[in-house]
């Protein structure tokens, strides 16, 4: 009788490791890979908002590092959960690492009614060229603006003259023309909102975007 008990206990002990092993072996089959969207904090420290929607329903991500999982186009997206930095790196890291640096913006100012740069702005052109080189930029936008001193038509022409003047200087200092787009917004995009016929130095500008 005692021998029988010993055998029974021995048999149970022999089975135990197998019992413990079994769930571990099956584990990889359980979490089948799902699609996922995660919301992150941006370079400015801002956490935005993302909405995911399909035939099964919709969810909104609003918190930093919150993620929704989606199993199929007709299955509702899962309730968002917070995920760790490690999991974000593991699932999304290869893409996150390759994000390009943000574009750089410069504003140059002009004398009243002319395409002559102010002295301070003239000096800024060197920074623009440095930015183009540092970023190996092939896409630079140059947009001319005016204040409301003159008519919209002549302001459109003046804005274009200002933008072309800047483009000309950049070209003369080595920036390839095919990397530049030049346009005028005239008085249509005032930095400082004013009535018609107002002299406003801050509106007499060229905006340069280096991408």
């Amino acid at each position, binding site marked *: 009788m005692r021998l029988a008990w010993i055998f029974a206990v021995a048999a149970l002990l022999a089975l135990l490791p197998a019992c413990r092993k079994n769930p571990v072996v099956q584990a990889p089959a359980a979490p089948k890979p799902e*699609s996922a*969207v995660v919301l992150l904090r*941006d370079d400015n420290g801002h956490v935005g908002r993302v909405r995911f929607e399909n035939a099964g329903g919709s969810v909104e991500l609003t918190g930093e590092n919150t993620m929704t999982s989606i199993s199929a186009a007709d299955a509702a997206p899962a309730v968002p959960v917070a995920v760790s930095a490690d999991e974000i790196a593991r*699932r999304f890291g290869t*893409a996150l690492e*390759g994000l390009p640096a943000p574009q750089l913006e410069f504003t140059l100012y002009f004398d009243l009614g002319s395409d002559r740069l102010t002295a301070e702005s003239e000096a800024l052109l060197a920074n623009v060229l440095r930015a183009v080189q540092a970023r190996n930029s092939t896409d630079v936008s140059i947009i001319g603006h005016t204040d409301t001193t003159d008519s919209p038509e002549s302001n459109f022409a003046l804005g274009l003259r200002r933008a072309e003047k800047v483009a000309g200087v950049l070209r003369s200092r080595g920036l390839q023309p095919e990397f530049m787009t030049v346009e005028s917004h005239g008085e249509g995009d005032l930095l400082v909102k004013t009535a018609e016929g107002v002299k406003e130095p801050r509106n007499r500008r060229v905006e340069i975007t280096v991408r």
Partner: protein
Amino acid sequence: MLGNRWGTRAFILVAIVLAGGMRGWSADQTVGSVKTLTGSPVVVRGQQTIPATLGMHLFEKDLLRTDAQSRVGFILRDGARVSLGPESELAVEKFIFEPGQGKLGLLLRMIRGVAAFVSGKITQLSPESAVVETPVGMIGLRGTKFAAALAAK
């Protein structure tokens, strides 16, 4: 002799018109440029498959594709940034950025793989008009930084 000269003139004229037209086309239609790159990603443009290069201009309908060893990142004209990890595919289906006319629209079609996004001015000015379409649903961009991974089929 006379005919030859006229032929030369006509040829020069046609060349100038073509060059002018092409320059205008490329300047107006560029939607962004390639900024980061590892391995050998490609751009599928119509029937052509072109190796992606740093600084290469991108156009509407371009599809970017990476293999297991490649990655690629690009910046759009509104300042939005996108990057693809390995074995990924994404197309710029629609890009309209004319803030002066109030015309704004962005549709990216993510086909497979993993991608990271930072939204730009289109999303800022008109959140409803920026979308990333995926095989399992639509991502509406309200800003600013997010990432998506699609399950392998």
